[in-house]
C-alpha cells in the first residue's frame, strides 16, 4: 500500500489523554495534498488544526488511521519536512544567518558548507533580509523575524513545508507582504505546503485548495478549490469571484462552529456575498 499524493491522511482519529478522560480532537479526517500544491486548513478555534501539523510532521502518531508522506507511512519525524510556527522561535544566541543555517547542522542535505551559505544568503535576499545576516533576532522586528524563520524552514530544501499560523501575530500590511513573499518562494522552487490559518483571505490568496475542518473532533467538512489562474496579486482578493469564495468559506466556518443551520446553501451565501460583501465576508 502506498499513496500517490505528497501528503495523504487516511481516516485519522486522534484523542488527547487528559485528567478528565480522553479529549477527541480528530475524527476520521482524510486529506489529500498533491505534490507541489498549496493547501490551507481553516476551522474553528481549538478544532485540532495544530494537532494536524504535528501528525504530518511525525512529531505525534495518530491513535487510528494513517499519515502518508511521499508514499511512505509517517512513523517519526522526517528531514524532508520544514516547519514554521506563529512564534518564529529563533535562537537568541545566534545571528540571523546562523539561525537560518540551523537545520543544515542536523539534516544530511548533501549540501556543502559553502553551498549552504550561498543558499542561506539567496533565501535571505529573497525575503528582503540582506544586510541583517549578522544581527541578533532581538534586533529585528516581528515581521523580519518571521521572514528569517521562513528561510530556516526552507534551507534544507524540504519537499514539504508545514506552516502553523506563521503570519497570525503580524500586522495586516506585514502579513500581506509575507503572503507575496510566499508566492515568490514557490515560484522559484516548488514545494508542497500545508498552511494552518485563521485568516480566510490568507487561505484564498495563498492556497490551491482550502479545507474547512468541522468543530472538535474535526473531520474535513468542506473543500474549496481556489481557481485563480496565473500570478496572484492582492487585487485578486477583491474580485467578485474571490469575494464569493470568501463568503462561501465564512459560511462553512459558521456551520463548523454550529452557529448556522447547515441546510442553508453555501451558494446562496456566496451570491449574496458577491453582490454586497458583508463585513464578515471581509474578515
Amino acid at each position, binding site marked *: 500500500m502506498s499513496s500517490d499524493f505528497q501528503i495523504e491522511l487516511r481516516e485519522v482519529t486522534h484523542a488527547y489523554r487528559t485528567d478528565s478522560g480522553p479529549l477527541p480532537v480528530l475524527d476520521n479526517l482524510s486529506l489529500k495534498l498533491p505534490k507541489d500544491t498549496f493547501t490551507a486548513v481553516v476551522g474553528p478555534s481549538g478544532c485540532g488544526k495544530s494537532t494536524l501539523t504535528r501528525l504530518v510532521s511525525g512529531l505525534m502518531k495518530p491513535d487510528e488511521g494513517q499519515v502518508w508522506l511521499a508514499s511512505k507511512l509517517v512513523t517519526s519525524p522526517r528531514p524532508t519536512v520544514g516547519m514554521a510556527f506563529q512564534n518564529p522561535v529563533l535562537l537568541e544566541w545566534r545571528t540571523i544567518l546562523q539561525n537560518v543555517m540551523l537545520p543544515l547542522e542536523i*539534516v544530511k542535505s548533501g549540501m556543502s558548507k559553502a553551498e549552504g551559505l550561498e543558499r542561506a544568503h539567496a533565501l535571505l535576499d529573497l525575503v528582503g533580509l540582506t544586510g541583517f545576516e549578522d544581527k541578533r533576532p532581538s534586533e529585528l522586528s516581528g515581521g523580519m523575524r518571521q521572514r528569517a524563520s521562513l528561510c530556516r524552514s526552507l534551507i534544507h530544501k524540504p519537499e514539504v513545508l508545514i506552516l502553523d499560523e506563521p503570519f497570525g501575530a503580524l500586522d495586516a500590511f506585514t502579513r500581506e507582504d509575507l503572503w507575496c513573499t510566499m508566492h515568490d518562494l514557490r515560484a522559484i522552487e516548488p514545494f508542497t505546503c500545508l498552511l494552518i490559518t485563521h485568516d480566510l483571505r490568507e487561505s484564498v490568496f495563498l492556497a490551491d485548495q482550502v479545507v474547512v475542518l468541522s468543530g472538535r473532533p474535526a473531520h474535513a467538512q468542506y473543500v474549496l478549490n481556489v481557481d485563480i489562474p496565473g500570478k496572484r496579486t492582492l487585487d485578486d482578493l477583491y474580485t467578485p469571484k474571490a469575494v464569493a469564495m470568501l463568503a462561501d468559506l465564512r459560511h462553512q466556518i459558521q456551520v463548523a462552529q454550529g452557529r448556522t443551520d447547515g441546510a442553508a446553501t453555501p451558494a446562496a451565501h456566496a451570491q449574496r456575498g458577491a453582490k454586497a460583501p458583508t463585513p464578515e465576508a471581509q474578515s
Partner: protein
Amino acid sequence: MTNIFRKVGVPLIFIGAVLVLWEWAVWFNGLPDYRMASPSDLLPKFWQFRWLFLERSWETLWRTVAGLGLAIVVGTLLGMIMGFSRTARDGLYPLLVGFNAIPKATVVPIVALIFVGQHDFNTILLAFMISFFPIAVSVSIGLSTLEPEYRDILRSLGASKFTIFWKIALPKTLPEFFGALKVAVTLAFIGTNLMEIVSPHGRGLGDLFDSGRISADYPLMFAVLFALAALGIVLFYIVVALERVFAGWAERGQG
C-alpha cells in the same frame, strides 16, 4: 561620562567615600581600636602580615573555586535530572529544600568529624554543600520551561535528544545558570570561611581571623574582613566576565 570611568571610577569613588566616612566615624566617636578599628589601622596590619595574607588568601581562594566547581558539576547534573524528569523533580525538590534549609554552621562539626584531618576536602565539601542548590534549581527551571516549539523545531528534523539539549536547551538556560552562579559564588565563599573559622586548622583567611580573635588583635580581624571582601569582589566579577562571554546575547536582548 566615559564607559570606563562609569565602570571603574564610580565604584572606586564610592569605596573611597565609605572608607573616609568610616575613618571619620571612628575618630569622631573616639573609639579605641579594640572596639572599632579604622581603615588607617589596617594598612600597617596588611604590611606586617603581607606574606601570611597572600598565602591564606590563596588557600581560601582555591578551595572556594574547587567547591564552586564541584557545585557547578553536581548542581547542573541535578538540575538536568529535575529539568527532564517530572518524577525526579517531584521527588528531589523537597529533599533539596530540606537540605538547603539546614544551617551549614551546624554541618561543620559533623563534616570535621566524619573526615577528620582532611582539611582541604572538608572545606571544599562545605563550599560545595552551601552553593549547589541555586544552580540545581535554576538549571531545572530553565530546562523545564523550555517552550515546546523550540524543541519541535529540531525534533521535526529528526534531531536526537542530545542534539536538542546541546543546541537549544543548554544555551537557552545559560542566562539563568549565570544568575544562579552569581549567588553561588558568594555562598561558596561563605562556606569556605565557615569551615575555616568554626573548625580552624591553620589554613585560609578564616583561620587568620580566628588567630586575630584569640590574640585580641582587632585591627587584624578587620583587615581579614577587608581581604575577604576584596576576594569576594574579584570572584564575583570573574563570574560576571564569564557571563558576558557565554551569555552576553541575553543582556543585549533586553537593551
